[in-house]
């Protein structure tokens, strides 16, 4: 959606049920379980294209869990499961479309005997197949702590691209440079592209992870408290980067820093005890919260 202006959807649109194609990603009535413990209760989250959506709330409220449902990274861990619908571009990504159901069933039976896991969980946690991998490429993720791969800066970015495309050296050079420029890291690393990514500072590493995430051109970029391990200057740089990225991507960010949400987010959702208490344009949520809980939280009375 490059051709779209980088302005946020007008606030009014949210209140009056916006047209469907404004939403790139939407969670509907999502429950989440860590084994027997329920962590999310019927959560809804609309994510609008080319906007920054922030999730705030006290620790343990489920905001990171919700983020991890959106690209199904939780499926790595046996025992974690989500119920509900997550719709990406009109396609339900939380459940598999069952092509060759008999084969799928056989596979899940084999898995079950081998891992001893609950067959129902295996049903939802697809372990083989490309759909899940492609979902994750469409919904990128940046983590709390910087996670550069143990390879050079260049290869860190080329790694994800190589999974999908065979590129010539020149094409790859261009992709790497573009990704680094968009993450505002190019000027700092252009002379040492082939030195290890682990040699960068914390803030640079985090922006490298952003660059790596956007190099595969996801539709949505999820960020899980990306600035919590960074100093204020690095945080400011990262925030500038995110605002700039809004032009080309859709961003969902989990943060425990209210000011951060107020500074950069177009929409904000406040979560508490596994429920979405309030969701709306950032200004409304901070200035005219509808719920008492929200008011108490944003005015610093708890949390």
């Amino acid at each position, binding site marked *: 959606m490059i051709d779209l202006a980088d302005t946020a959807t007008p606030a009014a649109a949210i209140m009056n049920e916006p047209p469907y*194609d404004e939403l790139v990603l939407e969670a509907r009535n999502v429950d989440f379980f860590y084994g027997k413990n329920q962590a999310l209760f019927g959560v809804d989250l609309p994510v609008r294209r080319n906007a920054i959506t922030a999730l705030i709330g006290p620790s343990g409220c489920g905001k990171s869990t919700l983020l991890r449902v959106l690209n199904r990274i939780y499926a790595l861990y046996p025992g974690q499961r989500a119920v509900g619908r997550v719709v990406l571009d009109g396609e339900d990504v939380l459940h598999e479309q069952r092509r060759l159901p008999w084969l799928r069933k056989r596979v899940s039976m084999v898995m079950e005997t081998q891992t001893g896991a609950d067959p129902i969980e295996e049903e939802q946690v697809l372990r083989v197949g490309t759909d899940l991998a492609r979902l994750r*490429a469409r919904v990128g993720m940046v983590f709390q702590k910087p996670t550069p791969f143990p390879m050079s800066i260049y290869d860190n970015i080329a790694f994800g691209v190589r999974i999908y495309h065979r590129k010539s050296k020149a094409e790859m050079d*261009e992709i790497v440079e573009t990704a680094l*420029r968009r993450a505002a890291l190019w000027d700092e690393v252009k002379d040492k592209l082939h030195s290890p990514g682990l040699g960068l500072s914390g803030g640079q590493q985090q922006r490298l992870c952003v660059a790596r995430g956007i190099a595969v051109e996801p*539709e949505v970029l999820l960020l899980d408290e990306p600035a919590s391990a960074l100093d204020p200057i690095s945080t400011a740089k990262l925030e*500038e980067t995110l605002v700039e990225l809004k032009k080309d991507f859709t961003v969902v960010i989990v943060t425990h820093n209210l000011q951060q949400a107020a500074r950069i987010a177009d929409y904000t959702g406040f979560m508490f005890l596994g429920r979405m208490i309030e969701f709306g344009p950032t200004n409304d949520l901070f200035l005219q919260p509808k719920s008492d809980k929200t008011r108490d939280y944003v005015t610093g009375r708890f949390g």
Partner: protein
Amino acid sequence: MNAFNSGDEGFTPSPRSSAGDTASLRPPVRGAWFDPIFEYLCLSAATLLLASLGGLVISLAIGGWPALSHFGWSFFTSTTWNPVTDVYGAAGAIAGTLITSFVALALALPVAIGIAVYLVEFCPRAIARPIAIAVELLAGIPSIVYGMWGLFIFAPLFAEYVQMPLMMNAAPGSLAEKLFAGIPNGANILSASIILSIMILPYMAAVLRELLMTVPPQVREAAYGLGCTPFEVVTSVIVPYIKRGMIGVVMLGLGRALGETMAVTFVIGNAHGFPDSIFASGATLASTIANEFTEATGDLHTSALIALGLVLFIITFTVLALARLLLSSQKY
């Protein structure tokens, strides 16, 4: 902000006009087909490990079966081991194995505890590390080196300075005379035990030291805060804290001693039968196998040796399994 403005140069995003066709435009992931194959390869490797242990048991059982069925229970109770008359009993070797191992353990354990406690609790940091490293390095020296040292250096010294004086001074007819009887060449049950104890010492000390280091400093500080002396801290707080793990270490040391072949074979004297004094020559299960297997005179002899292996396996497996269970139940 300059960096951002220059950001879009030369970038050509893939068209993303409508929502629905994005997924179909994205090429499939390369190499995803290999995912299940890779998992099965890893699983097969793990299963191969399991199968190797199973194969070991089965092959020992099959190989040893002729001798076991031929001699029945007398294989375990008879001390006769005679390749000439083709009569085999394992009692002597079993006794030799158990005696040498337990004596070695009794000798090594107090010293190992002393080293570990000293290094962790009392030693100045600057020299504790090098000593700990030296101890760990020595734990890796191959047993054949200990065996050679035992045969050529230790045994003659032992015969001259320990065995001879004791034998000379034992009053005729006394218990001491019986106890010390033997050929004064230094190759006997006791010297094998001592060599074994020296061999398992660094290993046990190293594992014990690691165990002691897992005790959280707060536990120590709390005890010192009550006015305990270091001795009281160690005996009443730290040792109870790692009790299960310590038993596990003891079993690991025992397991090593039971199965050790080369260090023992050099110095035990290799005589069959039940050892009747601490200076008698003897044999262990492992040393008997090592000495006779390639020169076994017949099928029954070979089978009897493999049956010894089966006995050794059962003993060591029990001890090692107990050790691992105790060590893994120790909460770190």
